[in-house]
C-alpha cells in the first residue's frame, strides 16, 4: 500500500515538474493563457469588480506565460501528429509563427508597463490581446472534428 502511495505521488510529481510530451506542455500553457484571459474578461463583462492590483497580477501572469513559450522546443518536428490542433503551417512557416507569438509577448509587456486604470482601459487591452490569440489561431491552428 505504502509503495502504491509513493508511486502515485512520484507520478504526480513527475507530472507537475515537467511534461514528457511537448504537445501536452504547449496545450497546458495555452489552457493557462485561456484561464487568465477569462479572468480579465469577467471584469470587462462586469461579472467581477475592477481591482487594479488583481488585474495587474493577471497581466503579469500572461506575460510570464508568453515568456515561457519557446516555439522551437514546444513544436519539435513531427509533433503535428497526435492529439493536437496545431496546423502543419507552423512547420512550413516557423518564422511567421514565432512573429505571431512575439507580437503577443510584446503586447503583454506593454499592458504590464501601462496597466489599465479602469474597465474601459482593460477592455481595450483585452481586445488587443484577444486579437493576438485570434491572429495566431487563424493561421496556425486547425480543428479536427
Amino acid at each position: 500500500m505504502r509503495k502504491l502511495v509513493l508511486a502515485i505521488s512520484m507520478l504526480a510529481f513527475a507530472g507537475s515538474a515537467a511534461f514528457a510530451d511537448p504537445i501536452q506542455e504547449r496545450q497546458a500553457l495555452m489552457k493557462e493563457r485561456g484561464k487568465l484571459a477569462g479572468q480579465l474578461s469577467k471584469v470587462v463583462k462586469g461579472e467581477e469588480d475592477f481591482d487594479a492590483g488583481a488585474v495587474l497580477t493577471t497581466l503579469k501572469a500572461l506575460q510570464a506565460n508568453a515568456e515561457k513559450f519557446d516555439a522551437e522546443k514546444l513544436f519539435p518536428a513531427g509533433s503535428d501528429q497526435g492529439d493536437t490542433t496545431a496546423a502543419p503551417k507552423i512547420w512550413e512557416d516557423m518564422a511567421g509563427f514565432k512573429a505571431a507569438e512575439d507580437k503577443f509577448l510584446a503586447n503583454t509587456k506593454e499592458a504590464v508597463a501601462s496597466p489599465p486604470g479602469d474597465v474601459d482601459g482593460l477592455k481595450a487591452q483585452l481586445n488587443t490581446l484577444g486579437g493576438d490569440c485570434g491572429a495566431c489561431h487563424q493561421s496556425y491552428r486547425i480543428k479536427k472534428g
Partner: protein
Amino acid sequence: MAWLKKLSGAVIVLGGAAAAAGWALSAPVRFDAGAIAQLGPGDAAKGKRIFYAGGCTSCHSKPGAQGDARLQLAGGLELKTPFGTFVPPNISQDRKDGIGAWSEEDFANAMLKGVSPSGEHLYPAFPYASYARMKPADIADLYAFMKTLPAVAGKAPDHKLSFPFTIRRGIGLWKLLYLSPEPVIALPDGTPDKVLAGRYLVEGPGHCGECHTPRDFAAGVKKGEWLAGSVAAEGTGVVPNITPDGKSIKDWSEADIANYLETGFTPDFDSVGGAMVEVQKNMAQLTADDRAAIAAYLKAVPPHPNGYPAHKPAS
C-alpha cells in the same frame, strides 16, 4: 476550399449538362423592372451593418488588411482549389477597375441573381446563393454604403481556372438547382421575432451555411444537414457543427454564443481560430441585438450529427 473543389467538379458536370439540356435553361436571368422599383433609395448608415453582416471585406480587401485598409476593396485574395484559384475582384468605387460605375440595378443583379452587368453568370464562390435571401431594401442600403468607400485603382488578377471551369454558362443550371430566395429552415407561426431576425442574418447576409454546411455531389449546400459542419478548406481541418448537437456548442448558452461572436472567446476561454477569425471580426461590428438574434436562431435550428467524419489521430 474543399467545397470550391467540389464546385469546380460540379461546373464540369453541369457544363456538359448545360450543353445537353439546352442553352436556353442556362441563360442568365436579370431582374424585371418591377422588382428594381422595390429597391428604392438606400441609407448608407444602415448599409454599414449589412456590409459587416455580409463579410464583404473578408474576401474583397487585400489579403491581411487591418484597420481602415479593410475598407479598401481592391480584391486579390486567392481562394485556392486544386482545379484553379478564384480571386475576388476589385469592388471598390473605382469607375474603371471597380464597381464605381455600376447602377443600383447592376449591383442588385449581382447580389441576388449572380449576374454581372454584361449579363454573364458569376461563380458561386461569391456566396450569392446566400445573399439571394436578402431583402431588396438591405441591398439598396448596402449599395449606398459602398458608395461612401474609397476608390482603389488596379484590377485584381484573373481567376486561374482551367477549361472547362472557365465556361460561365454552365453555372446557369447550378442556379436552377440551388438559387432560391426562400428561407432554408421553415419556422412555425408564432416563432419569436428574435429567432426570425437571426434566421435572416444567418441564412442571408451572414452566409454562415456556406462554410458550416456539407455540400452534395454538385457542390450545392445540403439543406437537410443545415449547419451540421463540413470538412474545411485545407482538407485536413473541419468547420464545426453549429446545430444544437455540435460538440462544443451544445453546452453553450445563447449568451455564450453571442459573446463568442463579439469577443472571439469561447466559454472555456479558448480563442476563435481559422476562417472564423475574419467572420468574428465582422460580427463584432454588429449590434448586441443582432448577435443575440443569431444565437437564438442557432439554438432553434434542427439538431444534426456532424457533417464530417470523426477524427482519427494519426500516430
